[in-house]
């Protein structure tokens, strides 16, 4: 048996981008493998659930878990990994704050099932079949994982030690946080690893062009307008969420002329990212007239929830569950 520390990687409700971020380490991953033994990584290597079950409790040093929790299978797996690991890390936006899958919390399970098995324009389902946890045919019974009423961020289901933000976490963030872990110099529990504690604007190359006060008569949508280069996106009217978002990504999106959508999550001290983003965007509006304010908001945003809560709806104060450890 090797004496190297064991690590596990697992995904829940996610797009796979976070796994890709690990692969993106390229040759640096060799340094990781040199220092650690991967005992579970369903995306890349052939391990079974039994392999994890056979480990002793706490035998895994670190489990990196990405994706939000939506089904009973995901809940069981993360609880199992929690039991077997010393440190659990919520890897990426979905695990950290619920992510894009979390936007489903504004619909009921019934609405979602109806859309995907009945009303969606490409759906062909004349027998009106829907997935059920148990399915019996010809005396055979099958079980599929249960689809929960809502989406959970990882720390609403299990105890989480550290967070790595990003959708997906950038290469440097992943690298820095992994090496922080191996260095043994661990920050206090609950810290965000690898990222900055200052707002994104702080590291944005366009920050110098940002005036002290910004007022806007209209918000522009990035899908319909081409931003000027080398000029703060916010003063051009694009809703860049840099001022309320944690830095650490080196302003990658802004460098590509795309406004920040907030994937690195809230700054320290903010409890509800969406409420804070809303507060900041609303105060930029340059109007004192009720009707005009409404127009500016309505014209610009067919879906305001998807703008301010793009990555964090399950962690909104409204959906936050108090009793975290017992699965919410």
């Amino acid at each position, binding site marked *: 048996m090797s004496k190297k520390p064991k690590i596990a990687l697992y995904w829940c409700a996610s797009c796979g981008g976070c796994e890709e971020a690990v692969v993106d380490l390229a040759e640096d991953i060799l340094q990781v493998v040199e220092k650690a033994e991967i005992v579970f990584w369903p995306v890349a290597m052939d391990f079974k659930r039994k392999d994890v079950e056979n480990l002793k409790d706490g035998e895994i040093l670190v489990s990196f878990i990405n994706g939000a929790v939506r089904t009973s299978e995901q809940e069981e797996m993360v609880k199992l990994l929690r039991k077997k690991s010393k440190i659990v890390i919520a890897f990426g936006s979905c695990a950290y704050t619920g992510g894009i899958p979390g936007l489903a919390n504004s619909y009921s399970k019934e609405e979602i099932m109806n859309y995907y098995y009945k009303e969606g324009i490409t759906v062909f389902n004349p027998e009106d079949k829907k997935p059920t946890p148990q399915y019996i045919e010809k005396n055979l019974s099958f079980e599929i994982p249960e689809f929960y009423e809502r989406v959970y961020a990882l720390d609403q289901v299990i105890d989480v030690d550290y967070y790595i933000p990003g959708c997906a976490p950038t290469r440097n963030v992943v690298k820095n946080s992994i090496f922080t872990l191996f260095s043994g110099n661990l920050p206090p529990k609950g810290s965000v690893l690898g990222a900055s504690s200052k707002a994104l604007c702080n590291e944005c190359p366009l920050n110098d062009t940002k005036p002290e006060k910004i007022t806007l008569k209209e918000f522009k949508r990035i899908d319909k307008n081409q931003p000027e280069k080398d000029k703060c996106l916010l003063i051009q009217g694009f809703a860049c969420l840099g001022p309320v978002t944690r830095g650490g990504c080196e302003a990658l999106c802004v460098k590509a002329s795309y406004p920040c959508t907030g994937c690195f999550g809230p700054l320290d001290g*903010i409890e509800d990212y969406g409420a804070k983003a809303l507060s900041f*965007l609303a105060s930029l509006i340059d109007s004192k007239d009720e009707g005009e304010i409404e127009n500016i908001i309505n014209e610009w945003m067919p879906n305001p929830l998807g703008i301010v809560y793009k990555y964090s709806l399950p962690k909104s*104060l409204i959906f936050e*569950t108090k009793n975290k450890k017992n699965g919410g």
Partner: protein
Amino acid sequence: MKDNNFEPKLLGIFCNWCTYLAADLAGVSRMDYPANLRIVRTMCSGRIDPQFILWAFRNGADGVLIGGCHPGDCHYIEGNYKTLRRYKFLKRILKEMGINEKRLRLEWISASEGEKLQRVVKEFVEEIKKLGPISNDDAFKKVLTSTKGGKK
């Protein structure tokens, strides 16, 4: 859960210079209004972070009343306009989250308008009584079903 004896819990967040003084005036003038309202004072309605309002709803407030100075009268010049913008924005968000937007109300009430305060609070209590407890709202059904029998 339609309860006829339902007494809503309302939170009032009032600006120090206008609406809070109106409540004070209503008090010293012995104008009575329903006791459902608990008041918090902020120096300006512009100080009201949308997080406060979400926090209130999450912790059982059935309605939140924001009170600020009339347009043009803000002690800090523009604070109440910021309140107005945030309020409009927040209303839309609440609706999409599954909270009845009528549970949030903004009123401009000056220091001399004790009567208006009395009327607004009475109206608001009646309105929220019709809506019922906040736990009836869609957003909370999700939270509650998930906090009770494990996530089912």
